[in-house]
């Protein structure tokens, strides 16, 4: 055990150091941009830090924002371990949110624990169905999952939009939103001033569970085998198509949980376009976390901190919040740079 763990640990350490180096480089490069914009990078980054984790309120906001990013990051990472690119976390998030909200509003009279559990299960299953659909198309019809998940995003987002404009609109229907979920379906709040609920613990627990599934179960081993080499998996008797379907389903389910926790962990009702792109940020989070569930947790926190801190930075230094997008983009670019370098070195050796 200790040997395997040590080896994994070493690998993780290497991966982590690459990600950290990329972050440092991105911050350094952005500092140049800040200078060019005529501001003081040290002051700007200090404001960013203050805004993200400076006090309880800031930290609460950052953690609240971390939660959905953990789920969508896990979703993308999980599929990627099977060599599938799930661009559809956003749509799966909407599917999960829809199911959870419906259960939360209409399935009343249950004990809270059961109501919450059902809402979570519903969100997972709805996301899994939405992801599984892309998985089925890929496995049975050979349709590229990148394309299908992108298109299914639109279907999910606009289907929800249609629902909140009509069938599910809260009476009398002036606002394009659903009613609030019942009290019994809401997750306990940790820090009332921000939207921080126990969902963050759920997210971390699910990350640990995901890591366990990937590295400590036959399902995870075979799923990763399919991701590494379909040929080897197939010749070893792994039913590749079933695993492709399974991986996309679980991935969708994880993204669905992001919708669930948004609904029963703070927003309590479904609005048009309620997600600020958590599903798409999940791609970057998974990438920065190197498709490692634990790495995803930290990457999600970092991205959340950047987003939350950006407002404070804008207020105190006048720098636009879009600078954060630049930093995020550069982090990804630098990681890509390292990946390309590694690939090139391997090729030279091989």
């Amino acid at each position: 055990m200790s040997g395997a763990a040590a080896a994994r640990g070493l690998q993780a350490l290497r991966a982590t150091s690459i990600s950290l180096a990329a972050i440092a480089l991105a911050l350094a490069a952005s500092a140049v941009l800040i200078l060019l914009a005529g501001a003081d990078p040290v002051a700007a980054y200090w404001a960013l830090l203050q805004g993200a984790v400076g006090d309880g309120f800031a930290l609460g906001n950052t953690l609240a924002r971390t939660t959905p990013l953990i789920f969508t990051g896990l979703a993308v990472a999980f599929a990627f371990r099977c060599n599938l690119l799930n661009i559809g976390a956003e749509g799966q998030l909407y599917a999960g949110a829809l199911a959870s909200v419906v259960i939360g509003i209409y399935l009343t009279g249950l004990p809270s624990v059961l109501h919450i559990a059902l809402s979570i299960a519903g969100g997972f299953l709805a996301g899994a169905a939405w992801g599984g659909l892309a998985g089925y198309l890929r496995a049975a019809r050979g349709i590229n999952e990148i394309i299908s998940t992108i298109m299914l995003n639109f279907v999910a987002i606009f289907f929800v939009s249609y629902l909140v404009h009509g069938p599910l609109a809260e009476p009398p229907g002036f606002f394009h939103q659903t009613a609030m979920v019942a009290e019994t379906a809401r997750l306990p709040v940790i820090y009332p001033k921000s939207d921080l609920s126990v969902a963050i613990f759920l997210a971390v627990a699910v990350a640990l569970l995901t890591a366990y599934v990937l590295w400590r179960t036959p399902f995870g081993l075979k799923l990763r085998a399919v991701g590494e080499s379909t040929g080897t998996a197939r010749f070893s008797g792994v039913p590749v198509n079933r695993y492709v379907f399974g991986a996309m389903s679980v991935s969708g389910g994880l993204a669905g949980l992001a919708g669930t926790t948004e609904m029963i962990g703070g927003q309590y009702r479904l609005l048009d376009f309620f997600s600020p792109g958590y599903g798409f940020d999940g791609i970057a989070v998974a990438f920065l976390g190197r498709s490692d569930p634990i790495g995803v947790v930290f990457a999600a926190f970092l991205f959340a901190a950047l987003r939350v801190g950006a407002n404070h930075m804008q207020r105190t230094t006048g720098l636009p919040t879009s600078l954060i997008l630049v930093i995020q983009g550069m982090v990804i670019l630098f990681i890509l740079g390292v990946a390309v370098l590694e690939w090139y070195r391997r090729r030279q050796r091989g």
Partner: protein
Amino acid sequence: MPLLRMERITKTFPGVVANDRIDLAVDRGEIHALLGENGSGKTTLMNALYGLHRPDSGRILLDGAEVRFSSPMDAIAAGIGMVHQHFMLVPPLTVVENIVLGLKTANAPRSPLLDLRTAAARVRELAATYGLDIDTGAQIWQLPVGAQQRVEILKALYRDADLLILDEPTAVLAPSEVRHLIGVLRGLAASGKAVIFISHKLNEVMEVADRISVLRGGRLAGTVAAAETDPAELARLMVGRDIVPPRRREGRAGDPVLRIEALRVRDDRGLRAVDVVGFSLSSGEILGIAGVDGNGQKELTEAIAGVRAIESGALDLTGLAPSRGERFRNIGHVTEDRHHTGLLMSFPLWENLALKSSDRPPFGSPLWLRVDAMRRATARAIETFSIRAQGPDSPVSALSGGNQQKLVLARELGLRPRLLLAAQPTRGLDVGATEYIHQRLLAARDEGMAILLVSTELDEVLALSDRVLVMYEGRAMGLVDAGEATRETVGMMMAGMERHEAAVQGGT
């Protein structure tokens, strides 16, 4: 004065000294063989000569004058031609088009136009002179590998090569084609050209070469005249010790494990690749399948393994495949391409070893892996199969080819399958690893395993098999008992002759 002299050529790659102070001299009219195991540095040395990369140190002299090539174009201009291990032809172009491709002036020095007719005439003339039978108008993809190789040789001759390098030219040929190629090379030498012939097969080199330079681990182990040496000495030079041929004990075949009748299988392109009348394989028996690469052996094994659909016919696995999962556990499969169908290259050894049995004791259960048990089992396999690895946790990609193959064998034999499919089990391996794998296969057979051995190396098939089935264009040309299988008969069957014809021609 020799035509070519290479002096103290050294070439290092990150972490390897591929060539270490190698001297080589080749005369006009000589066939000079370069013999050595895989990875001993033969290709690297020739690439240095051909201008593909520059040696770190050392000199190359042509006719006594030092030359420095910065690209193959320089080498070609100096009269050097090279036929690579992997051909460099453009499949949709015709033979002539390929031959003139890249020449500034295809024939007439000043004509701006491409005169393919004159070029074709000259190609035909060259072909006739050296016995390189070819259809100049055919497109490359239509031609069998043997003919493609002739195109490569013609390409070099068309550029007036005085020195022709052939890198492992016989690897893709049937024995009869090898004989033909040897005839061609003799003709070239007789006309005054020098030939460097790369190979790792002793018999071949003895037959074709005037002199033989042997490389071992990047160094020159010695240069000997073919007339004054024997295979045993060459083997010693090549490996650094005596090699013992595998010893096959008399065996008793048991009950049939696999029966095949009128089996037809299609390849990836949908063309019929296998059309075999029938055979059976019993426990305690090695059935060798001989044949040149690409004659349906791959599709046949894959159909038996259950990873390729059969078109028609009967494949009776005598109860080995009650379910999909059982099938993969009861049939061991050393696949032809260990990188793409055998191993998970970036995964640790133990995960590779556990792959086929991760969801049942002793390695696991449906819900979790028993990592400790797996790592211990891997450590034992490392020991028993003498796999050179740091430990169960190191990635497979860190192992050499031979050790990777041992790991595959350890996994497949570890399942104690009743039937083992061994496809090219020693391809690309050094002599030591090859010996070891042969011993393991024979031991498994003595313990009652049924083994289907697919190999393009005729010597390997003959040394290990109890019976030999020869495949040609998807059909079985005949089944021969080990006692009656000679190089000659089996070789002729590999070229498409039925068994009785081959027996007559081979004089057996």
